[in-house]
């Protein structure tokens, strides 16, 4: 079993296999399952992600009316105008936000690694797909690669906003996505680690401050940030840029920062954006009570 990103990368390099393959073999070993069992379980997750994006692009709305419809707006903009940030990046942003719009509307999603951050991995996958033309197997492998990195974070730090702030959720999710993009684009295991480190580094310190305690504002738009950063970091790593601070040390820094965060900034809905005049007003409107 790998405990660190260093061990994960070494295992892949030693056997000359991809990160996804290390994760698949470990899963087969730990759960005593066959390759096809593990693959079909992951394929079901992929199908749920695909369906959530389809629903989002039809347009969804949450019960509170706080979120919904932004994924559709962005797709429309892409068709009518020439986006400054490029079609692939904006497509990922739209699909990541859309997944979280479905989540906020209490639709069915696959947590990656959590529900609040569920947009980054599928959003990037279904955008990058249009350029890289992966096979179905490669798409499933994308999820195993994401999972391998998330596995290290979950065991050495945290993946929930209540425990470590949004850096632990969208930070981890975006970083997991960037590592998977690198593998799908033909990069090395070490380049996946570099991409992961660069995304997480830029998410350090991000607090979890949901307005009215709902997984809506700012969660949906944070998934836009996580997915776009994932693509940029993947490109940087594929270009040969490396992180000066090794991946495992970045995860360690994320853990210590989360430990130092006051509880008002860890998913209690008491600080940050939740504690702005508008944030408080929205809460009052939704629940009929003041903070």
């Amino acid at each position, binding site marked *: *079993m790998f*405990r660190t990103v260093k061990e994960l990368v070494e295992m892949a390099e030693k056997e000359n296999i991809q990160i996804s393959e290390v*994760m698949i073999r*470990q*899963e087969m070993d*730990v*759960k005593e399952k066959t390759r096809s069992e593990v693959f079909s*379980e*992951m394929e*079901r*997750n992929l199908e*749920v992600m695909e369906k959530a994006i389809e629903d989002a692009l039809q347009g969804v709305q949450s019960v509170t009316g706080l979120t919904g419809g932004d994924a559709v707006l962005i797709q429309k903009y892409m068709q009518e105008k020439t986006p400054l940030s490029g079609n692939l990046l904006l497509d990922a942003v739209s699909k990541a936000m859309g997944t979280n719009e*479905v*989540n*906020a*509307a*209490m*639709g*069915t*999603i*696959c*947590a*990656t*690694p*959590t*529900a*609040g951050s*569920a947009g980054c*991995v599928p959003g990037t996958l279904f955008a990058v797909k249009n350029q890289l033309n992966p096979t179905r197997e490669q798409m499933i492998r994308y*999820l*195993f690669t*994401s*999972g*391998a990195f*998330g*596995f290290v974070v*979950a*065991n050495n730090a*945290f*993946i*929930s*906003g*209540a*425990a470590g702030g949004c850096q*632990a959720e969208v930070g981890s999710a975006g970083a*997991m996505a960037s590592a998977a993009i690198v593998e799908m684009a033909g990069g090395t295991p070490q380049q996946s680690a570099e991409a992961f480190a660069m995304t997480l580094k830029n998410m350090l310190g991000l607090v979890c401050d*949901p307005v*009215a*305690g*709902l*997984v*809506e504002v700012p969660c949906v738009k944070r998934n836009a940030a996580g997915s776009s950063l994932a693509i940029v970091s993947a490109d940087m790593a594929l270009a040969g840029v490396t992180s000066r601070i090794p991946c495992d040390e970045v995860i360690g820094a994320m853990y210590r920062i989360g430990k130092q965060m006051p*509880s008002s900034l*860890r*998913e*209690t*809905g*008491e600080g940050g954006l939740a504690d702005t005049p508008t944030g408080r007003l929205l809460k009052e409107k*939704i*629940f009929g009570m003041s903070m």
Partner: protein
Amino acid sequence: MKYNSVFDIIGPVMIGPSSSHTAGAARIGKAARNLLGKQPSWAKIYLYESFAKTYKGHGTDFALAGGLLGFETDDPRMSKALDIAKENQLEIEFIEDSSAVDHPNTARLIIGDKEESIELIGISIGGGKVEITELNGFELRLSGNHPAILIMHNDRFGAIASVTKILAKHEINIGHMEVNRKDVGKEALMVIEVDQNVEDGVLEELQSADHIIQISKLVS
């Protein structure tokens, strides 16, 4: 390690909006139902810290109810679980508790029917994964990764041996075992994580072994 499967990270498939506050809460509710061994007719649920502050927005309340009704995390009836509980004569009371706890997402559940009740503490550690940290006042660490048998027994010599003998006879391998007691000679709790699911016949046999008070089973 807290997480041992890639599907703890990529998954679960669930009804939104929060993996820790919705999916995790449903799993805590379901674990409580399994430990009671039947559907409760009443539940008192204490919520702490992040659970207490945001449970309405995250649907923690309906998710806990859904779990008590036996729903999986992706059950489409989840958001209607509070109404369904009412229809099924399951009365649930939620109490926001400001006591200090070790984990920000903590719930204490006291559930039961006319005959019996149990009390447990569950924590939702992220991504839908949960741990049961206390049962009837006994501390434990139950991950839910493996099926488990929980045995309340009298603290007497031979109680543990009589249980392990029966498991050995049925060729059931013990993966992890913990024994915990409140005081010498008083009630004790055995927690046994096993590799495969245990048949009801084996449980009945265990129930009739020496010094055994109550047995419940947790399916992974």
